[in-house]
């Protein structure tokens, strides 16, 4: 692994962050806010540290897979630290721990916050906070790939280390084209949602911030009450539709809009995913009506928003689900575990893996019944290789193991059971809210610092899909030995 190559690309990552920091600085400058110095100085530091490697390191013609993986993992870690600098410099509720937690939560599009009063932030800081979602949603590394000049093998190496193998099943194109498609879909959805929210009555600033948070499936809001602040059914319906769209495979969305046969209406996985969401909405709505206090309309309004919000890993809220009956809570916890689809901006186990798990299980049962038979696992009419199947199973096992260990450590920190359990699930799944002390309209400020660090690592592990991080560190340890 060539350190100078990694340093060069990490420099690009910092420069990309600096771009959004300058935009936030401009907002603070025009509104004469006290966040001008923190934002501007953070932008300057990112620019200088980003430019520095470019002075020395020559043009790179090729990057191997290990270097690509290191750029991806270290790029995410570096970007989270860089993103915490403006928060830390601004002060207020942001201690170093809180600033880092907020930054990691923003970039990984988790959307969990330590802020008790979001509205105390300046517009510049709020924009920066939403920008971390926008940058992290599609992945900072992919953004960097988009602006890099094309060189043999560079995009492919970095891209394959950033995106899971499962999400590539729907693509039979070169990495360059895939990166472009993802970016086109991402930016188009964001622009469209900004316009719709603006028309529906949000201020332009709020519309931009909420669009960043929705399409990136993040969940940061500019209001303490999140979406509940607007109390507008049409805004909620629009956000529900866009949260759902953002939770689908971006490649399939693109193919749908371009009239390809392989689209979201023909995909069996998407059909199953949509069906499970609909069942979840109905079950929660019926449970809410049964428990009293909700009319049919209200029950479906809130259940559809909350179910889609959690399964898409957005985590935006229209009310505090902590007061909902236990049955509804359990269903919501299921969606926090299941999460969105591969190839989307969502995190977590991802529905495709659960689907593949059951397909694989079906194949195993058939093999037990007919040991001489030849069976294959298929997803959307494509044969899944044994290697990919094995990788998926390993991922699910690791995911559950990490979630269990983190819950255990949190419980050891004297955090109550439901808070520890849901904090662990929600952070590794990059969802946002949980239950107990961290419910949808609460925040993570009450947790001890050690828990915040642990959850930050958990969020990053979830965003980087666990295996990449473990593989990289195994490579680094072996190299040192």
């Amino acid at each position: 692994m060539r350190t100078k190559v990694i340093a060069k690309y990490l420099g690009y990552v910092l420069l990309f962050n600096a771009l959004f920091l300058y935009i936030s600085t401009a907002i603070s400058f025009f509104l004469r806010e006290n966040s001008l110095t923190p934002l501007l100085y953070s932008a300057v530091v990112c620019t200088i540290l980003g430019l520095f490697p470019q002075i020395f390191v020559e043009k790179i013609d090729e990057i191997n897979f290990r270097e690509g993986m290191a750029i991806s993992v270290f790029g995410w870690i570096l970007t989270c630290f860089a993103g915490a600098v403006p928060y830390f410099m601004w002060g207020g509720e942001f201690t170093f721990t809180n600033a880092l937690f907020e930054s990691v939560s923003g970039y990984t599009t988790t959307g969990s916050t330590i802020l008790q009063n979001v509205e105390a932030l300046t517009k510049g800081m709020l924009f920066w906070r939403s920008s971390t979602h926008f940058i992290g949603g599609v992945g900072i590394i992919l953004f960097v790939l988009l602006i890099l000049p094309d060189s043999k093998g560079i995009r492919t190496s970095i891209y394959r280390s950033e995106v899971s193998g499962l999400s590539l099943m729907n693509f039979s194109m070169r990495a360059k084209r895939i990166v472009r498609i993802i970016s086109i879909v991402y930016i188009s959805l964001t622009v469209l949602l900004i316009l719709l929210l603006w028309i529906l009555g949000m201020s332009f600033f709020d519309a931009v911030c909420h669009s960043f948070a929705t399409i990136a499936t993040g969940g940061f809001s500019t209001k303490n009450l999140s979406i509940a602040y607007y109390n507008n059914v049409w805004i909620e319906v629009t956000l529900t539709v866009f949260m759902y769209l953002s939770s689908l495979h971006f490649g399939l969305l693109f193919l749908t809009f371009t009239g390809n046969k392989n689209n979201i209406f023909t995909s069996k996985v998407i059909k199953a995913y949509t069906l499970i969401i609909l069942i979840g909405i109905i079950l929660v709505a019926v449970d809410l009506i049964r428990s009293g206090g909700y009319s049919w309309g209200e029950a479906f309004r809130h259940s559809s928003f909350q179910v889609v919000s959690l399964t898409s890993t957005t985590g935006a809220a229209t009310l505090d689900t902590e007061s909902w009956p236990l049955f509804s809570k359990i269903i919501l916890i299921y969606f926090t575990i299941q999460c969105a689809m591969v190839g989307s901006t969502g995190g977590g186990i991802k529905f495709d893996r659960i689907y593949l798990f059951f397909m694989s299980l079906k194949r195993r049962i058939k093999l037990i019944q007919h040991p001489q038979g030849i069976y294959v696992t298929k997803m959307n009419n494509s044969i899944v290789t044994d290697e990919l199947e094995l990788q998926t199973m390993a991922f699910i096992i690791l995911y559950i193991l990490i979630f269990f260990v983190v819950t255990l450590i949190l419980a050891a920190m004297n955090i109550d059971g439901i808070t520890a359990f849901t904090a662990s699930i929600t952070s590794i799944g990059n969802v946002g809210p949980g239950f107990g002390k961290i419910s949808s309209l609460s925040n993570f400020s009450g947790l001890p610092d050690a828990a915040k660090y642990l959850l930050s690592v958990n969020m990053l592990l979830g965003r980087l899909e666990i295996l990449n991080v473990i593989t990289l560190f195994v490579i680094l340890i072996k190299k040192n030995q």
Partner: protein
Amino acid sequence: MLKSLRAKIFSSFMLLVLMLVIAAIMSIIEFNKVGVSIKNVMDDNYKSIEQTKNMLDALEREDSGLLMYLMGNRETGSQTIDYAYSAIQNAIRVARNNITEKDEDKYIDEVIKEYEKFHTSVKQTTDASERWTLEEKNEIYLQNQQLFFATKKTINELMQLNQDGVYKQTDLMKENSKRAMMPAIVSIVAAIVFALLLNFFISEYFINPINRLIEGVKTHYPEKGRIDAKIRLEDEIKTLESEINNLIARLKVK
């Protein structure tokens, strides 16, 4: 990427200098804000608090003047009332010209309104010039006392508003002084990262090629031909390698 070593070193240090200069400018701006906050507290809020104290003092005097008047010391009483009236008007004028808090003018309007009621009542008493019985005097004094307390309450509210402003400014000062330190703290961390990176690049682009060149020269023998120190960049070290090879070639010719 810059080609020459001189340009690389110069640009690196310029970047470092730029970062430190900007940090210094920002710290100065933030410390200046601390200074402005102190000025706000001392000049504005404290001035308003002083005036509310003057108002309270004058109000007490006016009340004493009324008491003196009712007790029979009419001349001194009237003089005290007139003096207090002028002192309150003066304090109100200064406070009105020194609005520092949101809605402070409304608080001052309320003080004026309540004080006008109290003063009118006092003046009606002194202008009447009647002989009252002890019970009547008590009755008059109690009526005025109610207006006196209402006025005092509005003045106290005005004072509280400015005191809250002082606390707010103090918090702001604390926040600004913390922010003034932040560029320095971030600069220290960034400078450490910068130094580590610089160390790595110097080793990668200066020391290692020179070491390879030294090794090449050390292990060179006439039959070997050229020295190849595997220097890929077109910088001064590459030129040195070429010149050494030229020298070897010239020596061979001789």
